[in-house]
């Protein structure tokens, strides 16, 4: 009986913690947007310098690795599709298969996972260590709302940069696929890419981009809410960083699946 009671208590606690986490993230989102739009009315105007800094850290600094990973994934998709489609004599369908899967799915997914590991964890670590060392308290008593100073710039930068990086990753993936597949199809890479452009429509691009907006929200909110919830010194910061990455990637994959299910029915 005691064991059952304990198990039920644990389930109850975990459920409560999950709901309270979602609630906390929702409050942070509301506050971040409120400060972005109306902060000036309560003496908390949005500063452009931290937004620019976040744009650089989240976007520009991630550019090389995003392009490299996108290119590699495109190459890998080319290899796989050529190999499997040739079994059915449908080798020529590789162009449409790669084009659709990259723009609708892999571009957004790979970029989001990479940014979650890079910037989501950095947000959690930064805010968590600031909490532990009372820097958040210091900001508050100086009259600077920590959400406005830390969350709003990160959220805006993420909403701009994740879709931008997704476009670049998709482009790099298509180039990678073209370089491998074009010789196998006996056409030039340029012809491959032109054919790709003809096959894609706005809906394909929009599907990837709209996912990347949702992923941007998830990565930022999980990173910052995990950071704000840190307790227990340096060890707590380490735990929060890992938790932010695991939660972000899990949510990205689950949301991606749900999104794909409804959009492609």
């Amino acid at each position: 009986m005691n064991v059952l009671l304990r198990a039920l208590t644990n389930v109850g606690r975990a459920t409560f913690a999950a709901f309270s986490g979602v609630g906390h993230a929702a409050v942070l989102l509301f506050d971040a947007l409120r400060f972005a739009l109306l902060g000036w009315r309560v003496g908390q105007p949005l500063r452009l310098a931290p937004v620019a800094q976040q744009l650089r850290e989240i976007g520009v600094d991630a550019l090389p690795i995003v392009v490299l990973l996108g290119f590699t994934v495109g190459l890998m998709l080319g290899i796989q599709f050529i190999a499997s489609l040739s079994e059915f004599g449908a080798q020529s369908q590789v162009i449409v298969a790669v084009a659709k899967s990259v723009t609708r799915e892999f571009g957004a997914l790979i970029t989001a996972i990479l940014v979650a590991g890079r910037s989501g964890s950095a947000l959690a670590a930064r805010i968590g260590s600031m909490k532990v060392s009372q820097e958040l308290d210091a900001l508050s008593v100086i009259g600077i709302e920590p959400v406005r100073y830390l969350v709003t710039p990160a959220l805006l930068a993420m909403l701009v940069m994740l879709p931008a990086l997704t476009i670049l990753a998709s482009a790099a993936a298509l180039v990678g696929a073209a370089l491998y597949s074009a010789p196998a199809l006996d056409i030039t890479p340029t012809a491959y890419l032109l054919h790709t452009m003809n096959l894609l429509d706005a809906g394909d691009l929009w599907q990837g981009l709209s996912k990347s907006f949702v992923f941007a929200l998830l990565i930022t909110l999980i990173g910052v809410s995990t950071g704000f919830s840190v307790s227990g010194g340096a060890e707590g910061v380490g735990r929060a960083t890992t938790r932010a990455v695991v939660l972000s990637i899990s949510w990205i994959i689950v949301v991606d699946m749900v999104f794909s299910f409804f959009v492609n029915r």
Partner: protein
Amino acid sequence: MPSHPRDGPALQPPGLGPEPPVASAQALIDVHQLQAWYGRRRVLHGIDFRVAAGEIRVIMGGSGSGKSTLLRHLIGLQRPASGTVKLFGTDLGTASERELLAVRKRIGVSFQGGALLTSLSVGENVALPLREHTRLDESTIRIMSRLKLEVVNLGGFQDLMPGQLSGGMVKRAALARAIVMDPRLLFFDEPSAGLDPVVAAELDELILRLRDALRMTIVVVTHELESAFKIADTITVLDQGEILMTGAVEAVRAAPNTRIQDLLNRRPREVQVDAETYLRRLTEEEG
């Protein structure tokens, strides 16, 4: 009429008792029946507390006495569960965002560990409140922040990062940031903690100089007796969430109260737990 609160008589006879009267009009801080809870544990038991303009008030107490919780309420980091905390006449519990911001522009806080933003240089840390709350041009901000660094004897250190400073320098840089807006009210959390005696004494001198030069009201939370007796005009002794007494330095020294004398003479408290409670605590299930 005494020229300085330090020269005045004890504000209250030694022993247990309520806060001495300070005319409300003069009181920069007015705390009434403040209670604070952590879960089911009450850490402040109806505190009444007033600080007059121009004085240095030391809040003294051992670990777990509730002094840090009281400080967090005074600087608006925690809202009162019950009771009121007023700074400059503004009730922090019911203040709007704008009102709270207006109060925060008039106070400075120096945290125990400094709490300098590690991503900014020392100069940028000190300049941060000016950048956020004033429309001064960049060169004026730079001059003003360097001026405050000079006040705390850190002239020329503005380009260093906080990680490159010693413990004493971090505290002084935090102090420079706390006074850069020329606040009327300055809060200090454990200024001497973790510092060697010479550096701690220098910091005490600095606090006295600041009050005299800038006419600030200063509230210091500390458990360092030597430092408390050196800088205080008035001492409030806190123990187990209650104010034991508020009075001038000599009055506190002479207080007959055993809990105060235990604190002053570093005598360990005898913790009495009956056997049944002790056994129950050891064997009770978690959760």
